[in-house]
């Protein structure tokens, strides 16, 4: 039996936070108001003592979580392989940084840490005993254009299985199950002068799995401008989509899933997400033995609609979970 809890990643409020419209405390308060039991934050975005958890920061979080009745559940760590100006970090260096991140997550009271795919499968395996010691489960994010069973993700699954540790796992981002073009990107492309028939052509090429270069050439022949080509880049990259998303793959990896990112970009008043099939994803999780959080992660920051959209997403999730 699954035990699904709903949370909000404060990353959803990026625009409002950076512009000073919402303080860290406001973000936490809003997440609680929308009914989140827990929240996640990205260390490089909102942790004042990054990459460490200072006593001051720990005490401030404690005061805020008890004031608003919400838990600090997950810590988003980054793998900045290119942080040095002279060379890429070596695997050992990234592993060692991830151990520091684990300590930080642990001190902040988090149960889960998100790692990025630049942390290699081998390093994830080596992280397992540290994760157990610090009491924090580490999951590698499965972010579009990766899918639960794409080759690199299979390597992570193999390492998790071989290690046999429940403290390392995967964090699917719902965006990897998108079935339609990303609405904010589509709207931006239209606003920047992309003809709608060429955008539709680009989407069809993607549905038909025409290779990227060929799609680009065919669009250029049809008279595509920069706005169309920009949209095409997204359609084959971080906001790609499929006729048949890898939901079978999701079922397969469910035993390794430690946490979810409920990616979303736009919900209408009928609570329909524009490109991500929540109605197909949530039942799969509900039917599994998953015990953890789905963290709402809004990613259409420049719309200024983060608060309303996040509120709607939690409504949608609750609706689907009670069905």
């Amino acid at each position, binding site marked *: 039996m699954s035990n699904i809890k709903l949370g909000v990643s404060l990353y959803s409020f990026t625009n409002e936070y950076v512009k000073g419209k919402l303080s860290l405390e406001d973000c936490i308060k809003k997440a609680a108001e929308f009914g989140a039991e827990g929240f996640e934050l990205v260390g490089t975005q909102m942790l004042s003592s990054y990459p460490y958890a200072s006593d001051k920061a720990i005490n401030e979080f404690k005061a805020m979580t008890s004031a608003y009745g919400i838990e600090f559940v997950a810590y988003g760590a*980054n793998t900045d392989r290119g942080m040095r100006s002279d060379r890429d970090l070596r695997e050992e260096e990234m592993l060692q940084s991830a151990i520091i991140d684990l300590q930080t997550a642990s001190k902040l009271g988090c149960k889960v840490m998100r790692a990025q795919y630049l942390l290699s499968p081998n390093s994830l395996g080596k992280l397992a005993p540290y994760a157990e010691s610090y009491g924090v489960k580490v999951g590698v994010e499965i972010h579009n254009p990766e899918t639960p069973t794409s080759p690199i993700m299979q390597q992570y699954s193999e390492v998790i299985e071989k290690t046999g540790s429940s403290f390392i796992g995967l964090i699917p981002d719902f965006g990897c199950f998108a079935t339609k073009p990303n609405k904010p990107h589509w709207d931006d492309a239209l606003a920047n002068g992309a003809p709608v028939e060429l955008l539709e052509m680009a989407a069809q090429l993607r549905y038909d799995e025409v290779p990227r270069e060929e799609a680009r050439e065919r669009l250029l022949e049809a008279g595509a401008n920069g706005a169309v080509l920009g949209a095409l880049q997204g359609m084959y990259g971080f906001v790609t989509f499929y006729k048949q998303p890898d939901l079978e793959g999701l079922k397969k990896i469910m035993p390794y899933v430690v946490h979810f990112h409920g990616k979303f970009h736009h919900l209408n008043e009928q609570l329909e997400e524009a490109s991500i099939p929540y109605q197909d994803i949530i039942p799969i999780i509900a039917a599994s033995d998953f015990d953890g959080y789905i963290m709402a992660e809004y990613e259409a920051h420049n719309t200024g609609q983060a608060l309303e959209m996040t509120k709607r997403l939690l409504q949608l999730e609750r609706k689907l979970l009670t069905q």
Partner: protein
Amino acid sequence: MAFVMKLDLVDVVCDNSLQHTYVRDQKVGYQFQIRLSNYRGHYLSCIKELKVTVDGEAVNQDDVTFCLNGKEFTMLQLPHLISEFWNLIEPATIKIYKPGGLASGSHHIDVTLLLRIPYLRTPGSKQEHDYATLNSSGSKTLTVM
């Protein structure tokens, strides 16, 4: 091909931040504040280029320092600062040596600030250490406070 991202979230040159700096009551230069216009903070080693132009005149790199986390760094130190983190909402202070200071009134400050995005490989690139660029440049006309 360089792949450049620009997120215009905040003004890079901060309002009302231009001030003179003094040594023994004599104007020795001026300073102003800048913000990172991005969705996350970065280590200072990710700064690839930082150039300041004031009223159309490029400022000599020897005369510029970058102040953050209670410390003052030279331009040539920046590429080595792999453990000085620039928090997203923390303004940094740019200090410029200019004996006598600026004339009173308003001045146009132009900052070129380019960073390496340390997790985002240049799309399509197979080379090592080849990352996309974040353009956090900005300009503003400020009056000396």
